[in-house]
Structure formats: structure tokens, C-alpha cells
């Protein structure tokens, strides 16, 4: 069996495996959405996917280009208003896991999607927080997936749009009614988890063929590695088939729309 795959496919399949069947997941657009739908189409058929546009328990046939694509609404159990989505379902504590992407992340899992540079005179203005600030604090836990590079993994984010564990790793301590925060970060090179004490990100698993040196070279701080460093399981032929079908369907759909 030929089982060749790209690093992006490795990332998506690994991120998908983080979701367990039956979880309720508040899904961010892009990589998280790809991973969450792959999970639904493989090992987790009963995962409940919720998008901030109000689409509850949605089962899109193709990946949405925007967070409010008609496909999400048409394949949802029901669609609620955006205030209801954020107030009842997210803030009300009905979400097990928030699945997020980001432009920048630091050693304490703080996320920046606001800007590069200074707020008053930004070098690059990014889209902003959207749903993420409250997804990250109201969901039971948070998974994060993004590509690994020195541009994205920085020592200190330029701006904390969305809380990981704060600049000192302690920002969730003693805060009532707050979720556990990020519990794993999945990239195209490895899987990381926050240290249970210090909350600093630790590499727990390297993808097959990836070296610790490669991870360090793509990280903007001296990253820690777990003593027991695992090798991430390879994607199965079925996972790759389902992912490729999903992406091909998605491309056909979006290209065909005039």
C-alpha cells in the first residue's frame, strides 16, 4: 500500500484525530474546519460541528469558503441567530472544544489575529478577533492548528487577541467560569501540549521523518521537548482518501460558482 502524503495532509489528519466522537466543537474557518469535517467523515461521525454564523450541528458536503456559506445552513440541524449562538451555546457552556487557527502564537499559546507591529501604527493590519476571544475562554478546551514557522511561532505575540495562558502563563488561574484553555497545538511538523505546571508549550510528538532540529528552526523561542517524545501516527489510506475527496469536491464546488 502506497501511503505517501504531504505535510499539510499530515497536519489535517492529526488535527482531526484530536476530536472524539460525540464532542460538540465550535469550529473556526480554514484549517480547523477542514480537520473537523475530516473527523466527522472518518472516526467521529457524531461529532457536533457548530459555526459562529449560527449553524448548529452542521454536516457540510464541501468545506465552506466563508463562515456563513449557505452550505452550512442547509446541512445544519437548525440555524440560530448570532446573539443566541454566542450567548446560549458558547457562553452558556454547551461547547466541549473550540477549534481555532491563528496568525501568531507564543510559548503560552496566546493568539494574535489583530495586527503586526504597534496597534496605533500597525505594520500589517490583520482581520481581528472575530469569535475567537470568547471561544477560547468559554469552550471546555481549545485545539489550535496552524503551519509551523518562525513567522507564526513567536516568542511574544505582538498583541493578545485571544487568551492562551497570558504573558506569564497564569492568566487563567483563579478566574471563575473559564475553560481549560489550549490543550494541544497541531502543526505540519509536530504536536505540542502546554506543560501542566508552567503552561509553556512542550513538543510531545514529532510527525514521521521530522527532526527536533527542524521544529526548533521553525520556532521563535527555545522550545522544550518532552522526555518521552512520541512519533505521531501516520495517516491511514482511508483518512487520506476521504480528505482528498473532500478537498476535490470543495474545489469543484467553489470553482463552478460564477
Amino acid at each position, binding site marked *: 500500500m502506497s501511503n505517501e502524503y504531504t505535510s499539510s495532509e499530515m497536519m489535517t489528519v492529526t488535527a482531526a484525530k484530536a476530536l472524539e466522537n460525540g464532542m460538540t466543537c465550535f469550529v473556526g*474557518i480554514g484549517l480547523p474546519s477542514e480537520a473537523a469535517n475530516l473527523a466527522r467523515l472518518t472516526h467521529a461521525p457524531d461529532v457536533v460541528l457548530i459555526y*459562529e*454564523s*449560527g*449553524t448548529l450541528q452542521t454536516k457540510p458536503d464541501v468545506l*465552506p*469558503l*466563508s*463562515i*456563513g*456559506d*449557505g452550505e*452550512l*445552513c442547509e446541512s445544519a440541524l437548525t*440555524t440560530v*441567530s*448570532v*446573539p443566541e*449562538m*454566542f*450567548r446560549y451555546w*458558547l*457562553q452558556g457552556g454547551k461547547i466541549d472544544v473550540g477549534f481555532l487557527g491563528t496568525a501568531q502564537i507564543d510559548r503560552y499559546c*496566546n493568539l494574535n489575529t*489583530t495586527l503586526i507591529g504597534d*496597534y496605533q501604527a*500597525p*505594520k*500589517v*493590519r*490583520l*482581520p*481581528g*478577533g*472575530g*469569535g*475567537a*476571544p*470568547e471561544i477560547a*475562554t*468559554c469552550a471546555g478546551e481549545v485545539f489550535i492548528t496552524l503551519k509551523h514557522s518562525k513567522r507564526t511561532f513567536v516568542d511574544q505575540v505582538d*498583541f*493578545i*487577541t*485571544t*487568551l492562551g495562558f*497570558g504573558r506569564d502563563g497564569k*492568566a*487563567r488561574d483563579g*478566574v*471563575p*467560569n*473559564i475553560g481549560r484553555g489550549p490543550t494541544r497545538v497541531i502543526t505540519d511538523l509536530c504536536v505540542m501540549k502546554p506543560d501542566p505546571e508552567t503552561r509553556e508549550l512542550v513538543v510531545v510528538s514529532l510527525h514521521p521523518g521530522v527532526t527536533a532540529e527542524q521544529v526548533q528552526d521553525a520556532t521563535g523561542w527555545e522550545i522544550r521537548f518532552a522526555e518521552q517524545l512520541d512519533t505521531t501516527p501516520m495517516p491511514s489510506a482511508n483518512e487520506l482518501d476521504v480528505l482528498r475527496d473532500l478537498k476535490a469536491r470543495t474545489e469543484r464546488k*467553489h470553482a463552478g*460558482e*460564477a
Partner: protein
Amino acid sequence: MAEFLSLHDAVARYVEDGATVAMEGFTHLIPFAAGHEVIRQRKHDLTLIRMTPDLVYDQLIGAGCAKKLIFSWGGNPGVGSLHRLRDAVEKGWPHKVEIFEHSHAAMACAFEAGAAGLPLAVLRGYVGSELPSVNDQIKYIECPFTGERLAAVPSVRPDVSLVHAQKADRKGNVLVEGIIGVQKEAILAAGKSIVTVEEIVDDLEAGPNACVIPGWAIDAIAVAEKGAYPSYAHGYYPRDNRFYKEWDTIARDRDTFQAWLDENIYNAGGQAQ
């Protein structure tokens, strides 16, 4: 009671220079035709409110209509940046726009509070985020019952709200279907409201729990066929994803944008009557 007007007359009557304006529609039913009419009538110094500015506010900002922007996610969905918004914030072109930046949860709560006639919205929000350090419209209050520290933001109470919907009946009652976003809240929170619709029908054929906004809660209804294009109208036409991608090229450059504006807005007539 809703009055049936042309889009030109509705905007001319209810959108004043310097007004606080909300145009809502969460990716779906974005009131592009109404936004374009605001540009065509060269309204200026507007405070623009929208959770996701999207292409419609990129166009208004680039055309120089905006003084302030209140928003929570300012990207081109599925594509990348809003280049006109970025140019205004990063380089002050065509002029500086003051921004008040929130999270979606806070904006959604603020619209709901506006509809409820309250001065503020309370939420368990912004914990650990640095947004409160750059937006003085985010403050904290203590729950008088539990002592929990909660975020507070002013409610959204626009002078005028503009939304697009699928249809209205002949009494001006409006049905909104699909992703309903904060459209109802935007209408009820506003001093005046304009709803554009795809068509006027004899019977809305709405189920008992459908999102219907009564005609007596709306000021003006204007028919605008394909009024949400290039976003979509559930049951009528799909989102033009290709245009959203093309917009990246059009908006990246000031001259291309200006040419687009001339050709598609200023010299495109609109519905003047």
C-alpha cells in the same frame, strides 16, 4: 409603518451625513445595493457598525464615506485582507478612519442590548485579551449577586440600520430566512430602518417561528433585486465566491479600486427616480 420607497429615496431620506449606520447580514444577505446607494449619494462622516465589515464596508471606506468603524472581524472571508480598510488604517487613505474593535460575542450582545432598549450589554468576555487596552468602549462591571467580574460594552443604537431580506408582503412585513445573523436586532435597535428585499409577495408563507419583522417596526422597504450580491440570498442566488477572490485584486490598488467605483457605482445609475 413601513413605507415602500425607491432605494434612492429611502437612503436620501434616512441616511444623513455624520450618522451612525449599521448595515448587517452575517456573510449572508449583506445589503450591498443599499451600501452602493449610500456611496452613490456621497454620504460622509458616517460611523459604520458591522460585525464583519466585508466587501461592502471596504467599498464605503475606500469611497471616503466613513469616519469611524465599529467591528469585530475585518477580513475578506475565505480570501484574506480588506485592502481598503487596511489602507485607511495603515496609511490614512483616503483619510484616517477611527476604529473601535470588539469580539463577535460583544458585538452580538451589543446589538441585542440595543434591540432591548438597554444602555449596555454584559457578557463573560475579553478575559485575558488585550482588546480592552486599545478600545475604551470595553469596561468591566461586578455582578451585584455573585461578585463575578464581567465585561460591559455600550449597546449598539444606530441612527439608521439597513438590512437585506428575501421578501416583504404588501403590508411591509419582512421574512428573513437562512443565516439570520443580527438583522432583526439591527432593525429593532435603530432609530430608523431600511429593509431592501428581493421581491414583494402576497403571502410570506412563513412558519409560526420564522424570523418575521413586522412592517410597523420598519420605516422603509425598497425592492432591490440581487440586492445582496455578491453575497448571497438563501433560496434566491448563491454567493459569488469568484468575485470575493477578484475583489482582492481590485481593492489592492487605489487606482483599480477608483476605476471600479466609477464604473460600478458612480456611473451605474442606481435606482434614482
